[in-house]
């Protein structure tokens, strides 16, 4: 087991190196650099541009250096926990992202909990009552959630929340609480705003989870040991929970790998539409304005979490389900 983990961690290194190169090259692919998009933006608002200042900044930011040099500077910096400098914010990347990370995690965890709380009972119900009215009804509801575009739902809900509850549009709290110290009122204000993004982001995830849980559980419920158990008169609750449900949850553990990065990144599009103070909008605007160290470091962080999350879910799967063997071919 230990050897396996060690080997996995070692293979992570080349993976991450390749990812870092890809990320850097792709960010640099669009023509121009941050300063050019900065000039373009200033001029589109009719503001004057001081060429000398631009030249000065280009040197300060190291944008006049060759690509390889910039890459090396960035990667070696990251190894020392220096994630580079955000041109757009004129601050170190860690300061830009740091503030928003906490709120992003709150939203993501709330959304995940929301998804589970809704999806679990429905999934189990529709598997145990296959082809009943309840199954059809709830599945339809789930599909509706999956099919409605998130951003549309977000806008509709924002409008109604504003008109009927007087909630301020967008954001995660009333403006007077931004940057204010934590207090009961601030928490209430956040809760007032939190439910919209949670429902909007949660709906599509819920539908997906219902379907997967239902399918996995159905597979399991057809198995002979369940039939035998039922024939021997086991109570239905125990019959469901003791084995079939646990086995059906494998996909759930496997999901951890993808769950970790989403906790940090939040749902980008919805966050942009609803103007949430999460990391999603930062990443998007950084990519648009070619704020390369901000975008690059953030993407690297997501990649690291993904790689790590996959490892964790693999190990967890092996621990939970004795049928799964580590290192497949070797044990044959």
């Amino acid at each position: 087991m230990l050897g396996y983990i060690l080997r996995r961690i070692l293979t992570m290194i080349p993976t991450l190196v390749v990812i870092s190169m890809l990320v850097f090259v792709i960010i640099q692919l669009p023509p121009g650099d941050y300063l050019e998009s900065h000039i373009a933006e200033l001029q589109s608002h009719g503001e004057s541009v001081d060429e000398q200042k631009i030249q000065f900044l280009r040197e300060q930011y190291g944008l006049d250096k060759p690509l390889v040099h910039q890459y090396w500077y960035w990667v070696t910096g990251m190894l020392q926990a220096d994630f580079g400098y955000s041109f757009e914010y004129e601050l170190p990347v860690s300061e830009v992202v740091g503030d928003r990370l906490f709120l992003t995690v709150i939203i993501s965890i709330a959304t995940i909990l929301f998804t589970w709380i809704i999806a679990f009972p429905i999934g189990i119900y529709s598997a145990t009552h296959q082809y009943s009215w309840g199954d059809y009804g709830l599945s339809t509801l789930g599909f509706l959630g999956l099919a409605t575009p998130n951003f549309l739902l977000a806008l509709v809900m924002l409008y109604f929340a504003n008109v009927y509850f007087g909630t301020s549009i967008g954001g995660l709290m009333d403006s007077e609480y931004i940057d204010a110290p934590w207090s009961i009122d601030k928490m209430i204000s956040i809760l007032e705003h939190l439910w919209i993004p949670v429902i909007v982001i949660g709906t599509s995830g819920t539908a997906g989870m219902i379907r997967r849980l239902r399918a996995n559980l159905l597979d399991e419920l057809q198995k002979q040991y369940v039939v035998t158990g039922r024939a021997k008169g086991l109570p239905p609750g125990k019959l469901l929970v003791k084995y079939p449900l646990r086995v059906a949850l494998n996909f759930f553990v496997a999901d951890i790998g993808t769950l970790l990065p989403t906790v940090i990144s939040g749902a980008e599009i919805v966050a942009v539409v609803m103007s949430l103070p999460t990391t999603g909008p930062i990443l998007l605007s950084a990519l648009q304005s070619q704020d390369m160290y901000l975008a690059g470091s953030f993407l690297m962080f997501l990649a690291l979490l993904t790689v790590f999350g996959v490892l964790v879910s693999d190990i967890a799967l092996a621990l939970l389900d004795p049928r799964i063997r580590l290192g497949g071919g070797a044990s044959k």
Partner: protein
Amino acid sequence: MKTLLNGIFLILPLISATSAQAMDWLKETPSLVELVEAGKLPSIDDRIPDDVQVAQLRLDQAPGEHGGQLRLLMGKQKDIRQIVIYGYARLVGYTPELELKADILKRVEVFENRVFTLHLRKGHKWSDGHPFTSEDFRYYWEDVANNPELSKGGPNKLLIVDGELPEVEFPDKHTVRYSWSNPNPYFMPALAGARPLYIYKPAHYLRQFHARYQSEEAIARQIEEFAKRNWMGVHVNYDRPYKATNPDLPTLQPWVNTTYPPSERFIFKRNPYYHRVDPNGRQLPYIDSIAINIASSKLVPAKTGADESDLQARYLRMDNYTFLKSASKRNNYDVRLWQAAKGAHIALYPNLNTNDKVYRELMRDLRFRRALSHAIHRHEINQVVYFGLVQESNNTVLEEGPLYRPEYQNNWIEYDLKHANQLLDELGLAERDDRGVRLLPDGRSLEILIQTAGESTEQTDVLELIHDSWLQAGIKLYSIPSTREVFRNRIFSGDAMMSIWSGIENAIPTAENSPGELAPTSKYQYQWPQWGLYYESSGKSGEAPELTAAQELVHLNDQWARASTHEQRELIWHQILEIHRDQMFTIGIVNHVPHPVVVSNYLHNVPEKGFYDISPGAYFGIYKPDTFWFDEARR
């Protein structure tokens, strides 16, 4: 000699000084009383300059009361610089009538447009209470502009006339003199710009970051601490008066930032040392603080409609008007229609430097450009896209400006397919393919690709209408959307044949404003990027203008800079506008597009009508937002 002096010695009007008046007419600001009584802040007569500026209110304005918080919405953290634009405290500034007047300065003496003597107000202080003197100007000139490390290319090029640097003197604590041997007409407008040329810096604050004033160890420690490459990086980082990102940087603006970025909400507080008072002895600004909430720019109209802003125009567009107006019944605000000061809301830019030789020759042919213009049905565009609310016009000066003449606006803009077809036939494009599209001399079809920056559907809507009318003249139009950077690069490189963008920025110029925007002087001019680059780089790169009319524009622009009287400058302006009328280097479609401005019903002194544009108006700046006030009693 005496008459000569009379003719050329111009003293800018100064707003009456009050040193003669007794100081007891001044009233302490309520929100500062506590601080003053606690001894943390000097009392009002020690805070304002000895010769304080008394704000002259316009006829539609009334003196107000202190207090309140102005809520604004911005789309990005970087947008907090708008407060520096709105605040519009400049050494000299424009009035709503577009005259230049001394503002921070007590007065300016101008001699032959080449010697400028700036007189500071005695006792004027920075927002931290430190005196504002000629030392701050010296610091800029000697330690910033002429520091070879901090300003590698030397001082800003607006300060250089024919390669000559000014002689800068500091006769006493309150006087600064810039003198050139030839006129520099760019100097004063640069000081008055929405993004001004800062020729003063808070020396007492910035010295701590300057290598000349600090020991090597201290500088090395700062570089280390702020993770910069060198001391210049540290200095520039803390010296950003326009961006307002450093709350510690002393300023002369009416409101001072108090929030360190990054944040989603920025609070600007009143500058207790501001240099203007109202006629009743109240120190301006009236409004105690400004709160800026950062929201996604697409949500700004919706949030404004939900009464989350007291004064909003940024990120609102004409098509939000109906929504805002209907929501104003539920909420307490008024929607006003101001006007953009652009020469054209939408204009086509034929690229005279395009790579394709055949098209380049066509674009450069005056008859072709006129035919294109005649084949655009501007009236239809006005009715369909703009509800008939805008003016069909060339890309030229507006009638509200002093240089307007009707022929500049109306020439060649009527919808006249017959004439267009006739002009195109004359050009040797009479042959057509089976779609009815004309054939070029080399056998290709006449297909014009128009680049758009892909930012608004409005542009593509207009292009769709132009497409239909052009097709009747035998021209096929394709629009190619891209992103702003790609769009510009295609134009610079000559890949773009034609592009669509807005027209001239300042379309209400006076003869004292530079006509540079109308001559090939910058590579950012989409009709002749290479010619502009040639001028900008003094002939080192780009191409020399090949059309005589364009050469003439360059020549006139240079003449304008050398002209010594107002009449000469006005004459040159009209010559330039006449060339544009005749040559149609850009094809304007419509202008006078209204811009919605949302104003809270409790906010007073905001004009009913105005120009909403950065140049020359600094958005709200020339209407002096420090005189806007809240009726707190009604709220």
